[in-house]
């Protein structure tokens, strides 16, 4: 990496010299150069995408951001490979240094950071684009526009999926509502009849002919919650919209009894036209033409074709929606969704997931590289060969005799115990023995996964996750009555996932804390005289 120093500013050269003569174990990781190089590239790309012009009428979405992010991953991976090469060039550990064993912890962290840093380049690009999208309109302005859109969308019959057709009260109550709600009520010890009364009061169904030649009132289906009305699953999880959505819009959905006068409809469609001119390149909607068309025809939504209710009228399907405005509204909805997603998430969710995956990938790569630095590469290859053959054999036996994980877990536990014994022997041994070394390698690689392995052993072999305390009766609605079974509560599954999470991560942490000991073991093994 000396070429970096040639083009580096003086302060970096000074840092390089300072680290080399004072903290050589950090210097050897080349983290300072990587930090400088990656930050420089990150800033460069951030600047490029910072000045990249965004068009509000043709806005990038998360997938579009990925189109920039993914190509930048290629140089990021190459840079990571280059860093690995650099990090193994200088290997003070094999030179019988007079350093401290705890240095290995810092070295590990530096190396992981060094491998992780290249991913800042595409990451910053995504963040910059996302921030730019989020700030393309101010929060206040956007909330206003979004509220307009959510409200006036109803005037164009756009949300018919959330309303059902029922011939009478009984049909409505015995529909999905009952099947869905009754077991829940029973489970919670509540009275379903009370609910039915409330549902009848709050939910009005649409019946053919009632609103003939008038624009129908649309009422909420009882099993559609307020949250569902956010139209898009992204919105359900979206903290931005949940906290900032104007209460008037919520009231609108809850009350639902809207006066659909022509005047109000024209006004609302006018708002839509404003949004269309602001957020898209589409032509504006002709309000008068649509209202006249709706008045002269009794249209129903796509949902009404459902064969369950034996009402199937393809002729009356609202083709006008497709003709006049569906694509426009979808596009508008998509643009507004992109903005709200960007406002709600500083980092696009798919990218933040990738980054967290890379954290674990770089962790385990660092484990391997550190091992590679501490041992002879031939011993490393021998270990891969042995473990490969062993795993293949265990896999074959597992498959043939259907051990369902019992064999591999029991062998794993046995190896763990034997491995610890031999690793301790390595620590006190006076001559080098290849099998001591192999067992130490096994323990080294096993250590980050030790707790999750033990949890797996407890779960599969000892049936650890069998706690009656967390069981509850689960009612299921059958046509001939109700049935129930014992099932675990939600808390149980939460507990299970938390225990797994902490087992896994405490293993990762413990490995790092045990590095000084493992370092000592391998340095002792490295120093021992060999037979030839």
């Amino acid at each position: 990496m000396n070429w970096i120093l040639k083009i580096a500013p003086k302060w970096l050269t000074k840092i390089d010299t300072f680290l080399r003569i004072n903290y050589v174990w950090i210097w050897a990781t080349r983290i300072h150069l990587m930090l400088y190089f990656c930050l420089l590239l990150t800033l460069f790309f951030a600047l490029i995408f910072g000045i990249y012009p965004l068009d509000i009428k043709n806005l990038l979405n998360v997938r579009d951001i990925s189109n920039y992010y993914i190509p930048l991953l290629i140089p990021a991976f190459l840079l990571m490979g280059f860093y690995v090469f650099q990090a193994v060039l200088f290997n003070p550990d094999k030179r019988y240094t007079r350093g401290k064993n705890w240095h290995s912890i810092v070295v590990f962290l530096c190396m992981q950071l060094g491998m992780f840093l290249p991913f800042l380049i595409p990451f910053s690009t995504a963040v910059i684009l996302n921030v730019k999208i989020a700030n393309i309109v101010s929060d206040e302005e956007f909330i206003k526009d979004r509220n307009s859109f959510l409200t006036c969308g109803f005037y164009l019959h756009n949300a018919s999926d959330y309303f059902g057709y029922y011939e009478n009260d009984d049909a409505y109550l015995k529909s999905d509502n009952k099947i869905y709600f009754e077991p829940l009520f029973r489970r919670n010890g509540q009275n379903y009849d009370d609910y039915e009364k409330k549902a009848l009061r709050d939910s009005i169904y649409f019946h053919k002919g009632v609103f003939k030649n008038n624009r129908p009132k649309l009422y909420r289906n009882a099993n559609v919650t307020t949250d569902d009305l956010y139209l898009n699953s992204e919105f359900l999880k979206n903290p931005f919209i949940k906290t900032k959505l104007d209460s008037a819009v919520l009231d609108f959905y809850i009350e639902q009894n809207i006066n659909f006068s022509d005047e109000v409809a024209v006004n609302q469609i006018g708002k839509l036209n404003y949004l269309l001119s602001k957020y898209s390149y589409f032509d504006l909607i002709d309000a008068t033409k649509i209202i006249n068309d709706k008045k002269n025809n009794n249209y129903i939504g796509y949902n009404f074709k459902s064969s369950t209710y034996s009402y199937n009228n393809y002729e009356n399907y609202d083709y006008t929606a497709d003709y006049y405005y569906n694509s426009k509204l979808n596009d508008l909805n998509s643009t507004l969704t992109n903005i709200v997603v960007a406002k709600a998430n500083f980092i696009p969710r798919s990218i933040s997931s990738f980054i967290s995956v890379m954290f674990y990938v770089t962790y385990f790569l660092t484990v391997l590289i550190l091992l590679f630095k501490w041992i002879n590469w031939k011993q490393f290859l021998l270990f891969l060969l042995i473990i490969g053959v062993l795993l293949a054999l265990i896999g074959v036996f597992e498959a043939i005799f259907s051990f369902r994980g019992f064999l591999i877990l029991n062998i794993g536990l046995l190896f763990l115990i034997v491995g610890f014994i031999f690793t301790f022997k390595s620590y006190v041994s006076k001559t080098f023995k290849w099998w001591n070394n192999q067992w130490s390698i096994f323990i080294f690689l096993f250590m980050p996964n030790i707790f999750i392995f033990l949890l797996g052993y407890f779960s599969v072999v000892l049936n650890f996750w069998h706690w009656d305390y967390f069981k509850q009766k689960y009612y299921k609605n059958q046509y001939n009555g109700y049935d129930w079974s014992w099932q675990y509560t939600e808390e149980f599954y939460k507990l299970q996932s938390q225990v797994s999470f902490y087992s896994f991560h405490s293993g990762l942490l413990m490995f790092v804390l045990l590095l000084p000991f493992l370092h000592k073991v391998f340095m002792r093994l490295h120093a021992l005289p060999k037979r030839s």
Partner: protein
Amino acid sequence: MDDIFELRINEIELALANDDLNRVSRRMMDLTHDFDCSADQKMESIIFREKYNLNKELGKSGNNNQVLKTEYANLLNSVKNIHPNLLVLNNQSEIICNATDISKTLGSFVLQKISLQLQRGKIIGLVGENGNGKTTLLRVLSGEITVDDGTVEYFSGITKLTTWEEIKTELAFIPQRIERWWGNVYDYISYNAAIKGISGDENIYATNFIIHRLGLSNFKNHSWSQLSSGYKLRVEIAKTLVWNPKVLMLDEPLANLDLMAQELLLQDLKDLTASLKHPVTLILTSQQLHEVETIADTVIFLKNGRSVFNGNTDDLEKLEQDYTLELDGKFTYHDLAKCLSDWKVKIEKNSLGYTVLMDKSHSVKSFFEILLSNNLELTYFRNISNSTKKLFNDKY
């Protein structure tokens, strides 16, 4: 201690009088390094050495060297005036390593019952033909391979270093094939000092000292690929000596060097291992017998895995009552045999010329006389009676 100081001063004054600035610059550095001289004096000695190397590189002698000579005289006077103390007076007779009856079998080769002692600041030359166990012995002593029999004991009673991991922090082994390194010479040497715990200003001083001391001033910014094999070896020695190892093992260091480079390297090794501040025990293997003998305190001659000689070269004469002479000249084997026909001698023809073995009933002087009287003109002559070279002879 005063004697040592005076000896050093005299040595430098003599070299200065003879205009041997190369020697002056090197020994001046050694003097300021070993004795409690001021930081300025130490730095001056390094700068002057750098100047000398630069002048040499640029071919600027004459006036430039005259100026340098004056500067050296001034520096020497300032050192003489303050009469500094010796920084550390190490026990030169300390036994660093005791190897007893070590045996090792590697395939069909057997190293048999070798015993030796490594004394602080002393030089041991391991000589012998190819495949006779020199490198194997070095590998055993460096803890690279185990012994089948016998013991190798380091620092017994001197330090608390007991495990190989600890012992190896004080040993340095430079193999014949030098590993590639990265960066430039300065950074590489500084890095090696740092990993051995020499940090801060001490690191800067130690790096500069060894670079200029070993004549690498003009190469400090060179990379591996820009150096010749001779300078690669120098860099390797520099990166080792910079952290003051207690034992330095060199496997065939002279193999790729020209005669001048060999002489210079051996002189530097002799000076640096005899450092008063950080004496180094040096073991080197070589086939350049004469050169090794000139600097080694002890020579071990290995033949077929056995030690056929282990001691001072002066002891060799006691082995035999014969003279072994090497010679060549403008004459034939027949001329030489005819000339020595009355003497009890054995004459062998070899690539260098002739090897003559004669008993001590005649002196070397009479040998010359008889050649002269027969008009045999010599072009090369060497008395190897007290050289291990004669051990190559089959009778050993």
